[in-house]
């Protein structure tokens, strides 16, 4: 398609200009930092330099004190108020240092920081640093920095203790059965939640820092030996290549790393639940945890993932399969229902049963607009109502839905502005679109495109549009994995439209897991608990 070409050209131009810009920035940065300022031996100078680096903020606290045998040393502790745990600072850092009175042999002034870190304080994570910028970085991430007079090194002491939300049930993915914990905004809590699910030493956790101004911490978590090395490399390459100002949410990262940025379909998965992410990591995916958001990304993502929920694996396979089929149907309804209504009423009257046709004709009698316009108005008003319901404060949101949906809808029909069948169609579409939150963005956009095609060429237009969507889906990839895999041919079908019993899923999905792909080595058939060896083999087959 012509648009494809234009799209690619645009992308190329954008990326090349972006790279050129990034290059310039790098040069400037290098010019600025031609010599990293080292710490001096003077306490005052160091503290001043650090305060200067932190723009002398009012929340920067400097505590000076004298310590050591006969109080012969002077030192200072610098930290940012609110990001540190004050109890920890007083109990684990200040108290031991100030009460340090005896030692066999007085250390030289140069080595004082080392001695303090090894002999005096009782903190878990201490590091020696030697430059002002490192000091500033550690202060900004919530550590306390200890300086001593005459010592050109400083101590970075982990004293992080900022306010954070506790682990609660995620609002976006609630379950009837299954764990209720959700990720929080804190990176370490999230990595710990994941580690508690997968207690394996092979679960690797790699840290990166992105964002020139925000310095956001990012963790890649995957299982060594299952995750595809190429995916990890690509992911690291794409994230490390980012030289952007800020990363505030996982959506930022998603847009920078995805394969098809202009497609209506998202090719990066996300979830708020540790059990879901753990399941995906165990299938060989890589989780990207970003500090400051409870939404964890996973790559590669397949289209079928949007239709899988955590509960599918906790409930009975038959029921889970049925629910999955319902979800697929809902997606089809969400995309096609208005388009089919338009085609039926404006082109293909003969396909509607006669009684229904008469009912529709009666309802449409006297409505002023053509079908397409009528449907379009209703779809847009639904989107307005939905957006209003989400953004407004909860009490007002309810008022919106009552006034908007009940009163306006009813009044519009009884006043004869829109026909009742349109309202029914849009209502079904709206309800169906809520079933698949992961594909909500794509179905809203595709619905409008399909409606336009239906108004233009009826079922033929819809069919050609569907064809184009299918082709588009076939061209999509997510980090090397074919996005629409699982429909083209029979591989991975065990966990796509249907959900087979767990004991039949012996291997991890093809094209995602590399290396150790066997999930189940052996099992005792659940069908006959008292049977002997021969049945075990039968079950394995």
């Amino acid at each position, binding site marked *: *398609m012509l648009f494809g070409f234009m799209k690619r050209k645009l992308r190329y131009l954008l990326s090349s200009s972006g790279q050129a810009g990034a290059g310039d920035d790098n040069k400037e940065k290098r010019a600025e930092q031609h010599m990293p300022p080292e710490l001096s031996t003077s306490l005052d100078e160091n503290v001043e330099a650090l305060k200067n680096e932190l723009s002398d903020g009012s929340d920067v606290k400097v505590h000076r004190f004298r310590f050591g045998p006969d109080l012969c040393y002077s030192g200072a502790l610098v930290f940012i108020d609110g990001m540190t745990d004050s109890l920890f600072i007083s109990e684990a850092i200040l108290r031991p240092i100030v009460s340090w009175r005896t030692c066999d042999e007085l250390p030289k002034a140069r080595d004082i920081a080392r001695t303090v870190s090894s002999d005096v304080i009782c903190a878990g994570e201490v590091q020696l640093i030697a430059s002002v910028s490192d000091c500033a970085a550690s202060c900004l991430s919530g550590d306390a920095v200890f300086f001593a007079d005459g010592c050109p090194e400083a101590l970075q002491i982990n004293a992080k203790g900022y306010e954070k939300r506790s682990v609660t049930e995620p609002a976006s993915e609630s379950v009837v059965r299954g764990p209720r914990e959700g990720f929080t905004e804190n990176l370490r809590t999230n990595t710990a939640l994941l580690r508690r699910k997968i207690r394996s030493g092979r679960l690797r956790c790699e840290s990166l820092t992105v964002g020139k101004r925000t310095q956001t911490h990012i963790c890649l978590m995957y299982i060594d030996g299952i995750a595809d090395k190429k995916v990890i490399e690509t992911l690291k390459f794409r994230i490390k290549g980012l030289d952007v100002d800020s990363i505030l949410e996982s959506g930022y990262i998603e847009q920078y790393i995805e394969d098809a940025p202009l497609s209506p379909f998202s090719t990066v998965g996300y979830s708020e639940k540790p059990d879901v992410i753990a399941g995906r990591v165990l299938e060989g995916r890589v989780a990207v945890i970003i500090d400051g958001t409870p939404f964890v990304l996973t790559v590669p993502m397949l289209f079928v993932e949007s239709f899988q929920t955590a509960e599918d694996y906790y409930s009975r396979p038959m029921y889970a399969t049925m629910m999955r089929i319902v979800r697929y149907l809902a997606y089809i309804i969400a995309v096609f229902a208005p388009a089919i209504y338009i085609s039926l009423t404006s*082109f*293909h009257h003969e396909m509607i049963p006669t009684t229904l046709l008469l009912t529709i004709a009666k309802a449409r009698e006297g409505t002023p607009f053509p079908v397409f316009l009528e449907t379009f108005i209703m779809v847009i008003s639904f989107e307005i109502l939905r957006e209003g319901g989400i953004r407004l404060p909860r009490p007002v949101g309810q008022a919106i839905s009552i006034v908007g949906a009940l009163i306006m809808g009813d009044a519009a029909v009884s006043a004869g502005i829109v026909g009742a069948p349109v309202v029914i169609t849009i209502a079904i579409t709206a309800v169906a679109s809520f079933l698949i939150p992961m594909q909500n963005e794509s179905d809203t956009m595709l619905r409008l495109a399909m409606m336009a095609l239906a108004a233009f060429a*009826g079922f*033929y237009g819809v069919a*050609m549009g569907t064809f184009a969507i*299918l*082709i588009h889906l076939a061209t999509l990839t997510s980090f090397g994995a074919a996005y*629409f895999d699982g429909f*083209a041919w029979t591989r991975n079908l065990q966990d796509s439209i249907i959900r087979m019993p767990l004991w039949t899923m012996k291997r991890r999905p093809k094209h995602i897991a590399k290396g150790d792909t066997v999930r189940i080595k052996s099992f005792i058939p659940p069908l006959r608990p008292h049977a002997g060896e021969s049945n075990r083999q039968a079950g394995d087959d």
Partner: protein
Amino acid sequence: MRVDKEQISGVRFMFTIVLYLESSALLTGFLIPVTRHESWLTVLSGLIVSIPVIALFRAIMLMFPDMNLIQVLERVFGPVLGKVLGLSYIWWFLNLTSLNLRDLGDLTKIVILKDTPALVLMVLCIIVTSYAVRYGIKVVTWYSALFMTLGFAILAISVLLVMNQIRFENFLPVFSLPIKKYLHSTHMISTIPLGELMVIMMMTPNVRMSRKDATKYIFGGYFLGGATLLITIIRDIGVLGPTMGLFALPSLMTLRLVRLGEALSRMEILFAIALISQLAFKVMFLHYISVITIAQMFNVRDYKRISLVTGALVIAYGLTLYDNIVDHAVSAQVFAPVFWVIFEMLIPLIVFVTAKLRKLPEIRGT
């Protein structure tokens, strides 16, 4: 130079062949006037007669496993004659694409959109197929399994639905026509739907399969597809009987006659689904073949660029081909079978014999 470097698996190649024949089974209208209710006999004989032809395609594919037809022609006949033959094949593939596109436009007009000009429908289709062709063979054949299964399902459902209307008398009398008619009809079957399979020689380098698999997949696809054709014809004859010659689209009429209680009647929507999915696939596939043929011939490095242009050419050519669907059917009965033999059987045969005589290829591929 390989135009499209992507490769598909042998199984998908087989599905593509099946789907190609399945889509031909939709349009059996042109066959019927010649042998009428005995057409199923000629379909059967056509299927048998075409086996050596398919074997010939297979032999050429195996002889030059990493060359497509255009490259084979140049290799066997030298640059000048090879180019001339290559050009004629470009015309032939474009012709084939146009014919199918025209069919799609005309039939859609008949089945679901009576007042829309066929041009609009054709343009819409070509825009979509050009989009697919840009992404190469993988995307073009991606849905072959899905659509094939859909086609089989529709065929099975339709056979079950009309089971109560099939009259055995409709197949009688047998062997009542002059022998010439049977020959004519067999010839049509073996050239128009079956001989068209020579397009698979254009995708030799893009299929990943061993020699042994080649036989399995090519003939597997051929017989599965052929069976579809046969079942469709038998179903239509069984339901419609002697009136069959009256309709341009016997399958549509058959499905229209479905009457099983109140709920299951007028199932032509099934035909519409099959028509659009299979014929659009066929047009897409042939469009792809035309594009890579042109790209190969003129050494176009980036074949993606010519996909829309080729599509425009196909539409323009398709519009000027015939005045109406009857004209088309007559041409398919009289003109095409004779003329297409050149491209489908004669040239491949000469290629095969010449290659054997010249002891080509010197280094045999595995």
